[in-house]
């Protein structure tokens, strides 16, 4: 029995992707936890940007909103959303974490609606917020999400945020900034990247306790496989200690 839960595993795995000296645009919850964890472990000079205008805060605790006053606590700047979005568009933001009700094999995300009628949706979600903006501009977009065959869908009911669109060169041809797109998808079962030519989702490592079959059985489309599939490194005692004691002491995100 592992001494960590799947949310802790996803946050730790996500935080390891954030390299020292890089910049990351985050939302509330797990993305913020991953960025804070990276800052408190291997990447103290990670630049954290909140879309609403908070630049490089010393987060005293998890924000409830990407615009609340914790996002400017001992920050270098409190600016505008237009200003942060312009920095994203200039190519100054390396990483972001997004999520959604559905994700397809090209990493396209749905956070808008379920059902065919746009004016009278079966289920209405918040919409893009800043997700489409982050997904369009950030060099490397990542997703942390539990995986099942409904969420990992053959086709999204609505593409809110661009992944690699229809695969191949379709993202570059759409007019979105070149060299951007989904980078890692981190689930409770595995870690995926995108095969460089087809831009289809590909298994690169499998989490402790799961098999290749589990990963495919809980996915609504056919996954590609890396030549050598690795085992995801479990969280270290140090990472877990920092996450539990400093990042999320009230266990809002990592749960009980």
């Amino acid at each position, binding site marked *: 029995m592992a001494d960590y839960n799947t949310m802790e595993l996803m946050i730790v795995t996500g935080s390891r992707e954030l390299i020292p000296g890089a910049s990351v645009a985050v939302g509330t919850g797990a993305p913020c936890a991953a960025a804070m964890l990276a800052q408190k472990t291997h990447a103290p000079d990670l630049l954290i940007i909140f879309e609403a205008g908070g630049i490089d805060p010393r987060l005293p605790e998890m924000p409830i909103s990407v615009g609340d006053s914790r996002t400017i606590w001992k920050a270098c700047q409190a600016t505008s959303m237009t200003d942060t979005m312009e920095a994203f568009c200039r190519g100054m933001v390396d990483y972001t974490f997004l999520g959604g009700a559905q994700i397809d094999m090209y990493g396209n995300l749905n956070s808008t609606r379920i059902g065919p009628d746009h004016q009278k949706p079966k289920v209405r979600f918040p919409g*893009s917020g800043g997700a*489409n*903006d982050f997904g369009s501009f950030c060099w490397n977009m990542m997703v942390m999400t539990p995986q099942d065959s409904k969420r990992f869908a053959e086709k999204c009911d*609505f*593409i809110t945020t661009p992944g690699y669109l229809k695969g191949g060169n379709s993202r570059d041809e759409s007019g979105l900034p070149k060299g951007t797109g989904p980078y890692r998808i981190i689930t409770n079962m595995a870690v995926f990247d995108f095969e460089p030519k087809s831009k289809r989702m590909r298994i690169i490592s499998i989490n402790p306790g799961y098999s290749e079959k589990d990963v495919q059985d809980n996915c609504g489309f056919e996954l590609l496989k890396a030549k050598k599939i690795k085992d995801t490194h479990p969280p270290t005692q140090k990472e877990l200690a920092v996450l539990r004691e400093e990042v999320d002491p009230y266990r809002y995100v990592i749960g009980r």
Partner: protein
Amino acid sequence: MDVIEEGIGRVFTDPDADNARAFFKTKSRSLTSKLMSLKDAVAKFVHDGEYLAIGGFGANRTPIAACHEIVRQGKKNMGFAGHTSTHDFQILSAGKVFDKLDIAYIVGLEARGLSPNARRYMESGEVEVSEWTNYCLSARLKAAAMGISFVPIRNVMGTDTLKFSGAKVIKCPFTGQKYAAMPALWPDVSVIHVHEADMYGNCRIRDITVSDLDLAKASKHLIITCERLIPNEEIRRDPSRTVIPFFCVDAVCEVPYGAYPGVMAYEYFSDEEHLREWMAVEKDPEAFKAFLDKNIYNVESHFDYIRLHGGMEKMLALRDKELMTTSNEA
């Protein structure tokens, strides 16, 4: 300019720059007192059928007192900019104030979850929607603030967000690069909550400004609610701190704790207990009706609302929470 692709969403406001100029030609430039009660400001400047925008970011420096007043006065059939809107959206949905909606972020309260009542309203088919993103609506306000009819930006292309928006994809005349053209958005009326303002409407904000500085310039009519009134001499002592100038402003209302139960940076933190109560009570439409009567319809002012939820003692506790101090621990 050739249009390569366009969305099917309606653009609810007129993007014509000369029509906007014709309006701004008539707007007062005079340095006169604009002090009035919030009740009078909403009655005077918020009209059924017109287009409304709300400043701040969801439950952060958002003019909540004004949102309550708009609902209390029963404003209807408005267009609304659902731009980073969370608790404000929840309140305006409760009053069914709008039936035309530009969407960037709606229904949710970020880490707090989704509003059951706002969701029911959005799934009812009663609201006509156009789909955008946070940056799209910021850019639309920026175009309006610049006095031009659109700005080109590089998001949404290739997605359904574009298909259900009112944006159009065009080519750069210099490079051939594709851009999504965002039509200018000139709201009929907006409300922005600030830390300090003088009687003429010169404003100071000690916080992130989100899209408020462009919103102030873009709005045909602008109501300012402020935590504190300050003398014009103080404004003139340090004019570099003025972020919204008086000539953008039509009404100045002193509303201390005007962003409660949301956050006001350096003043008070959000009342999470009360926000959770909102979310929970919305699950039962009958109970929610009684809740709205108690908290909005049968309430005279924002002070009465605050008294219902712990009054000054609560405000001081929220100040401690905001500043991470313990000075007022009983």
